[in-house]
């Protein structure tokens, strides 16, 4: 298996800490791309800033390592312009839910066909372990002066409320499961969200500590898989309004479930809400046929191909 997806690897030195959950996510992305046989040059990984932000440099596809909190706007601009590329956006929990939270919500409202993966480690890793928005109140991470003063937000709930149409949670050390989630999220036509629990052994290893096992193997026992239950995350085209509503209530309840085991898997998949692509196509005559990146703007003599004569007529005096 190691070499199967080597064509999605670069030679760039990876300087994450030993044991970092990021490795599992990176591998899962590469495995998913391999399984889906997506062409390297038709894939773009966008990232924010943080330890997680370095991800694209390790993947042999187009890789755009943007700025802190803005990964979704960059990714959306690219995907709207070239709908043919597979766009994966990755970033930290601080990046996506702290400084970038406004974009998260706005992206949900658009439902552009992108897979967004948050590396959820409860801390600002690259700035040395300050609490991130997903860290629960009262928890003291390794490098902090006092226990976290802020309440956490739940990425799953927030994604659903914001309008993401595919919402799932994975665990970075369960790579096979995670890979499958990634495959589903990439296949989904619309905006997907993957909340990946990512232990940061350097600053926030609480995930291990909770079970007091100190080993990765065992900690995956703190999770259970939604697909192993009879939970139904899908809202289908033929569900009527009331059914949709009832399902959504259940989905919400699942996302807020109490209990010692954390559910992983797909929480929500909405097949009704049209993607932004379809919406643009509704208001633009030829968006689907000639999206921005495929428009030719000049001929071989470098003359413009745009013909504004009708527009000039409007301002002409005749």
């Amino acid at each position, binding site marked *: 298996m190691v070499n199967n997806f080597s064509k999605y690897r670069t030679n*760039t030195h990876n300087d994450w800490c030993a044991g970092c959950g990021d490795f599992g996510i990176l591998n899962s992305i590469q495995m998913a791309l391999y399984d889906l046989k997506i062409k*390297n*040059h*038709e894939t773009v990984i*966008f990232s924010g*800033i943080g330890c997680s932000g*370095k991800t694209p*440099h390790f993947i*042999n*596809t*187009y*890789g*755009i*390592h*943007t*700025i802190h909190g*803005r990964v979704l*706007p*960059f*990714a*959306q*601009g*690219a*995907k*709207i*312009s*070239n709908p*043919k*590329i597979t766009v994966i956006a990755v970033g930290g929990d601080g990046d996506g839910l702290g400084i970038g939270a*406004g*974009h998260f919500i*706005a992206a949900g409202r658009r439902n552009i066909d992108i897979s967004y993966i948050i590396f959820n480690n409860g801390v600002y890793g690259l700035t040395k372990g300050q609490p991130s928005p997903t860290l629960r109140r009262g928890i003291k991470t390794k490098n902090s002066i006092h226990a976290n003063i802020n309440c956490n937000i739940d990425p799953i709930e927030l994604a659903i409320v914001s309008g993401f149409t595919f919402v799932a949670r994975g665990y970075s050390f369960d790579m096979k499961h995670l890979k499958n989630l990634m495959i589903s999220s990439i296949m989904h036509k619309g905006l997907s969200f993957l909340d990946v629990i990512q232990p940061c052994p350097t600053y926030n290893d609480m995930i291990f500590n909770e079970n007091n096992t100190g080993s990765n193997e065992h900690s995956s026992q703190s999770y259970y898989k939604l697909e192993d239950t009879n939970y139904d995350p899908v809202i289908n085209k033929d569900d009527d309004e009331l059914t949709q509503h009832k399902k959504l209530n259940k989905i919400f309840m699942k996302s807020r479930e109490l209990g010692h085991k954390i559910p992983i898997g797909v929480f929500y998949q909405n097949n009704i809400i049209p993607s932004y692509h379809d919406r*643009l196509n509704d208001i*633009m*005559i*030829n*968006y689907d*046929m*000639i*999206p*921005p*990146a495929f*428009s*030719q*703007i*000049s001929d071989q003599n*470098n*003359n*413009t*191909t*745009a*013909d*504004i*004569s*009708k*527009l*000039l007529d409007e*301002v*002409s*005096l005749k």
Partner: protein
Amino acid sequence: MVFDHTWMIGGPQGSGVDTAANIFATVCALNGYKIFGKREYYSNIKGEHSYYEVRLSNVKVNSTTSNINTLVGIDAETIIRHAEDVVSKGIIIFNNDILKVKIDEIKTMDDYFNIRLKKYLSNKNKDFSVHGILETAKDRKVLLYPISLLDILTKIPKLTCRNYNSYRLLNIIYVSLSLAIFNVPFTSISDVIGKIFYSKPNVIKHNVEISKLAYQYAVDNFKIISNLKLNFKHDMLIKGHESIALGKIIAGCKFQSYYPITPATDECLYLESKKFINKNMVDEVTVIQSEDEISSICMAIGSSLTGVRSSTSTSGPGFSLMVESLGWAGINEVPIVITLYQRSGPSTGLPTRHGQEDLLFAIHAGHGEFSTIVYASGSIEECFYDAITCFNLSEIYQIPVIHMVDKFLASSIITCNKFDLGVIKIMRGKLLHDVNKDFKYKRFEITKDGISPRSKLGQHNGIFWNTGDESDEYGHITEDPLCRIQMMDKRISRLDLIIKNIPKSQQIVLHKLNEYCIISWGSTAGPILDAIKMLERINIKVGFLQIKLLQPFPTEYVKSSLCDVRIIIDIESNKTCQLGKLFKQNLHRDIDYYILKYTGRPMTCTEIYRSLKNIFNKTATKEMILTHGK
């Protein structure tokens, strides 16, 4: 003989001042007048005072004056505010109802204004009332044309379309009255009404009826101002924001993201609403309203990475939010065009008013050091060609371009020649349409001219990485100090390349040279050109160097142009002489006089004319602060 007549209409925001002025300007332009029009309004949706000046002439005019020849008041406030500026033998058209209005009861008037007005009237021994104001006007030999709206309105047949805003009635009446005294044929009015409301036949019919009544009223009651028969045939009557939008379309801009903000929104809505033709297919610009300006610029950058010509338009507050991402575009050599519609700052400032206050900010925007081009247009026509130039420069030099325009340009209107599409080329620089698969592609390859072949997302064999960190030739992070130097040098060196390669005429417009020479930038060129013409009429000659390329600064060219100039006069719509500072920094030469304005109102040619005359008369101070405008 030069005919030069300023017609102004004013009324509360929402009362159709804009429509009225557009009809007026269009009809006059159709009848051969050269036009310059300008709109002023508050940051308000309904009720505050707004006005529109339309200057008519038989020679080209590029600005407004400080004078009004015909003032049309939809409400009392317009008369109260502007009567003072009506020239001797000018006309004030107003509804005689307003004589009853008590100034103190007009809630929309600033206390400051009222205090000044009281002083002004009491100095003239007049009442603090509309009556007092009109009396001072009369004393100055202004002709008062009171009308009885009631008389006209009662003649109108029963309203045919229900819910029809009655204000809209008034504006049609006033504009028709006005046009009558310019002696334009009524048919040209009804044609324009027909064109404006083309989708609503009922509205047309109704408006034409009303218009006719008003027209007749004026013919019956007023004297004719102008009997000019002009044979000019203008091609276009166009606004600045339309001009820029058309430039973008021609340039092949296919993606525009924006967040609503005055005065940039108009251009975006224009782009969004227009369809045009590309290779016999109906084509459009993908216009995205984003959640904020940070997102706007990031989306535009994302789009550009796919090889698309992309852009965003904003004004000061939005631009402030963009500067972090601008640096990312800079370090990653991403071509994008940011159209910066300046307005009065700081902060929210005077959000619907004019200013040229963002020059030095634009040049230094963003932490760290990277290259950008800052390019300023001086007229509505330039806006069109420059928009295209900006995209070309952006792609040739793989660099963000900030296209500086402003509220004055955006919302002014002018008659001009049809755009010359023949001179336009689309230059995409080193954009690759396919990539040689035999070499491992390096996005930031070190090349002789410092510019690397550019691949785009999705392209075969062209995979690259971008990062905001310092990077190697592939785009992977590096902290190697010598690679850092190489990359910094590569990015910054293109500023020299730009100065070397851009045609001089695109760097500076050398309008005239003389012992006394004006330097300026952006839209202030309009009133300057008009002022220079006025001075010529009294045999004073003054040079004018309009700098368009502000970053990188064309130091040598400016220096050589000015070597024989003795007195340099810097004219800008700001307080801190921003071009002046740039000039001094690059030329190590002081400026002799400053003419500045920062009231949020554009300069008039009259003001500049007077200040320049003072310089020639040796009665000028080093800094002259202009104040005209309500």
